[in-house]
């Protein structure tokens, strides 16, 4: 029976991976580029599970066949040996005989039932801004558009490492969530993810100028404004935080791809 249950658990894991990759919720947890790998991994797990179930079903339907009898005994033997080992060694986190395969249901249920939200304001407020120096100091000109839509990381990188030269006096539109800092200072922030949300770090831009009075920390906004030749100091790690002179603020929905890379 154990292998049928293991197969069903794997089928659930595979199905969940495919589901979050198709529905787009995966972007809350891992970088966007991982999607094809999630689909492939989900498909492989589902195939292994289905083939395993088919094998078990065949063995069940033809119990007398010699080859299948060996198969059955083999599975049972491994099963008992595993319990024995768990007991002696005590590494099996819990009661004797508990199969760790069951633990795979925890993330599956968390994903299917709760679907935890992307990391945002509370994580960003605890960490210092994590802007990294670009590989080369040559900045390509901004694309066309007025205002020109750029990522928050792009704006911050140009502002800090290009001293705003490639930004000049262009009107830019950036989106992110707002954070309340010390002394009434507001920041627009975005989490940057290299691989998965465990390595998420915020990039912050200090907002200068008139802001709506009813700004709520954590809300998502698109902010239009111009480069301001001034940097603030991050309150956590004292790194340079670029400023943006705000011209317009528009509330937006949490984007489907909440992280930048």
């Amino acid at each position, binding site marked *: *029976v*154990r292998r*049928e*249950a293991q197969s*069903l658990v794997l089928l659930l894991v595979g199905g969940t991976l495919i589901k*979050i990759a198709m529905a787009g919720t*995966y972007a809350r*947890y*891992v970088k966007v580029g991982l999607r094809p*790998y*999630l689909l*492939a*991994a989900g498909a492989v*797990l589902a195939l*292994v599970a289905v*083939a*395993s179930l088919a094998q078990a079903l065949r063995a069940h339907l033809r119990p007398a066949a010699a*080859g299948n009898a*060996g*198969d059955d005994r*083999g599975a049972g*033997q491994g*099963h*008992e*040996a*595993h*319990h024995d*080992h768990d007991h*002696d*060694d005590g*590494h099996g986190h819990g009661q*004797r*005989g508990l*199969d760790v*395969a*069951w*633990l*795979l249901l925890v*993330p599956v*249920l*968390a994903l299917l*039932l*709760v679907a*935890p939200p*992307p*990391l945002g304001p*509370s994580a960003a407020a605890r960490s210092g801004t994590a802007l*990294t*120096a*670009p*590989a080369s100091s040559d900045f390509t000109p901004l694309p066309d558009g007025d205002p020109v839509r750029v990522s928050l990381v792009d704006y911050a990188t140009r502002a800090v490492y290009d001293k705003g030269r490639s930004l000049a006096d262009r009107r830019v539109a950036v989106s992110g969530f707002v954070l309340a800092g010390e002394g009434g200072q507001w920041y627009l922030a975005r989490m940057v993810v*290299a*691989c*998965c*949300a*465990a*390595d998420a*770090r915020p990039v912050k831009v200090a907002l200068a100028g008139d802001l709506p009075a009813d700004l709520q920390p954590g809300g998502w906004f698109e902010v239009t404004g111009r480069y301001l030749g001034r940097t603030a100091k991050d309150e956590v*790690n004292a*790194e340079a935080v670029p400023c943006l002179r705000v011209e317009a603020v528009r509330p937006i929905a949490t984007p489907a791809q909440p992280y930048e890379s």
Partner: protein
Amino acid sequence: MTLTDRQRPGEVAAAPRRRPRRIGSIEVLAVLLILAVVARTWLPRAVRSPRLLEWMTVFVSIVVQAMPFVVLGTVLSATITAFVPPSFFARALPRRPVLAVPVAGVAGVVLPGCECGSVPIAGALVRRGVTPAAALAFLLSAPAINPVVLASTAVAFPGEPGMVVGRLVASLATAVAMGWLWLRWGRDEWLRPPARPDLEGLSRWGAFLTACRHDATQAGGFLVVGAATAAILNVLVPPRWLDTVAGHPVGSVLALAVLAVVLTLCSEADAFVAASLTQFSLTARLAFLVVGPMVDLKLFAMQAGAFGRRFAVRFAPATVAVGVAMSVAVGALLW
């Protein structure tokens, strides 16, 4: 899930199996899923605490992110188990274990991806008769020195090419040193891989499927334990704590080695985090990059699952110590 008489591996089940009239895993699974459907309505409303949700996000992120690598590692290890004869490794590796260790360490270059895939593969290698010391060198080096990880390190440290070289050299040196240490002091009785389903008498595909199913559920289950623990610390470790030790030459190296174990980052991503720890010396950050792919909470749980806890409690601390020593040595030469 069922409680049957304890038996030694290798003993054929003599007692008739009590098949009928017991609560089997399928029944438990069915009940769990029914409970889940019931929980669906109130659970999302019950989980409100931002910290708890943050923990959950980081936890599922580590699991989701690792699954493709776990599946890759599982498929490769099942392929080794079902299709590659032990004689292949006997021919591919030098006969003398002392030489097989560095060869296996360098062979880690060929496995692209992060560390979760290498644990089942190393387990399969041991079962296929590869000397444990060589399999362990492969286990440690594969996640740290493959092209994908080195490329992401180069991207994360644009002004510091020494970091890529340092990571390659220090990681390889640690992996080979650990292999040799195992040859000298390791004992085979510490290695107690849990018995797996007996593959005798199965067709090759049957053996492949059984090995896949077993490895995926075991590696996945221990991954869940590690990811849950790491997510707690990931959410709770206050960044300010780091600033207090950053200036201290010895303390900073040890602090980042411990942080690497605790944070449990994927080896493709850790370079970006290391790059953002600007208050630390390059040597300290090198230690972070060398230790992280070899020992972290997730790997510890997976190694305990694949090789037994008695192995993991000795191997992991020794690896941290050797990794720190190698990073300091390489850092002293480079910077």
